[in-house]
């Protein structure tokens, strides 16, 4: 299940890219129509990854450049949901007041990539690149979020895990990310052991007033895995150890085996629980 991603076919240079037509839709509907009708369409937003992806064998028939779709930019509240436009850059998201509805999210978002990437890379692009070292999937998984896609067949909501499985409808366009705002939802993101491992912790209160939590661990080469927490007992080490009992045995990275990830992940999780006041040391 947790196979290390294989290197793709590397072209000699990005200069090998053959010229392609570019479509500039003005609206989401036009973009969806372009995705449906164009030859081998590839949506293009912040432009962080495409040249590299092409060198690794990604074919481009038609580029659907999303630059004009302002309706897909920005973070806003929609009822009890935090809604993030797919074209929101990391810098915009980290600075948005709305993202502050989830304490810890702006700070975590501000750590994605270097400033040159944060100024142009987008939330949607980070997710759809499906690079294990990218981090939006980790945050979205921890926060119980979903991704909305639009296609000629209609709209579909997918979990981050389903995106890794490439379960989105054919020729679909990612439009928004959504995070349901559970009571007292907050995020703690720990990158201190990166690149060996990264861990996000989401905490919230359920309808019955009970404390709930979810930890998500990821590495450079493995897609994120979520661990549900049992926060009864108030002992950070015991909670972490119990959660990590559920870590799959085959969650093992070439740089750090399953045993190390098990121990390090549990230790980091205990530290996060204490930091958030969810358990005692």
């Amino acid at each position: 299940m947790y196979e290390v991603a294989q290197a793709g076919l590397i072209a000699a240079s990005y200069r090998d890219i053959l010229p392609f037509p570019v479509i500039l839709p003005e609206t989401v509907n036009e973009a969806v129509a372009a995705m449906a009708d164009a030859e081998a369409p590839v949506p293009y937003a912040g432009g962080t990854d495409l040249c590299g992806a092409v060198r690794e064998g990604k074919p481009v028939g038609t580029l659907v450049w999303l630059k004009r779709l302002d309706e897909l930019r920005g973070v806003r509240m929609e009822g009890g949901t935090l809604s993030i436009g797919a074209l929101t850059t990391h810098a915009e998201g980290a600075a948005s007041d709305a993202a502050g509805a989830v304490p810890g999210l702006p700070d975590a978002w501000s750590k994605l990539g270097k400033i040159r990437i944060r100024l142009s890379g987008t939330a949607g692009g980070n997710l759809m690149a499906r690079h294990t070292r990218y981090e939006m999937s980790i945050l979205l998984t921890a926060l119980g979020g979903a991704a909305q896609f639009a296609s000629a067949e209609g709209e579909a909501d997918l979990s981050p895990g389903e995106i890794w499985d490439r379960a989105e409808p054919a020729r679909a366009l990612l439009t928004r990310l959504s995070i349901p705002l559970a009571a007292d939802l907050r995020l703690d993101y720990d990158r201190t052991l990166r690149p060996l491992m990264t861990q996000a912790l989401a905490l919230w209160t359920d309808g019955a007033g009970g404390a709930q939590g979810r930890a998500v661990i990821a590495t450079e080469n493995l897609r994120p895995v979520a661990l549900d927490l049992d926060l009864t007992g108030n002992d950070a080490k015991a909670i972490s150890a119990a959660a990590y009992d559920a870590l799959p045995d085959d969650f093992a990275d070439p740089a750090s085996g399953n045993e190390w990830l098990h121990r390090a992940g549990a230790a980091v999780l205990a530290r996060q629980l204490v930091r958030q006041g969810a358990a005692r040391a």
Partner: protein
Amino acid sequence: MPDRLDPRFDLSFTLNGAPVDTATTTATTLADLLRDRRDGRGTKLACERAVCGACTVLVDDVPRASCSVFAFEVEGSAVRTVEGLTHDGELSSVQAAFADNSAFQCGFCTAGMILLTEALLARDPDPDDATIRDWISSNICRCTGYNLILEAVRDAARRKREAGQ
């Protein structure tokens, strides 16, 4: 810009303040256009994967890795390269600070570092060290001369403030 570009199309933008109209292809990167068609060899190519930042240019004042920006993206935009920083043979404040602080060894990263610094100081004229480190860490100096670069950015900020820039 039209709603659709053919693989070969005419591109218009400004380069260091001067208008440019040129025929190009949709697959041409900005770095290639600058280096091969505009004689802009100050824009260096190294990793060609948007990682090292040696090819950094400013597109509408936003630092971009020109190796991974398609030229068509700058239609109607203002592009600045290191060649555009010098006026009448006089170095800009940032260039002078890099020179005076010996903030380079081989010099291959220098143009990208200088443009990154220009973008930083345009947003934050008095950045603290944490901010400078955050920005400079976008680009890679393979000679690892980061402390001198850090000092040059501090100095450049000081010079710009004193000059009222």
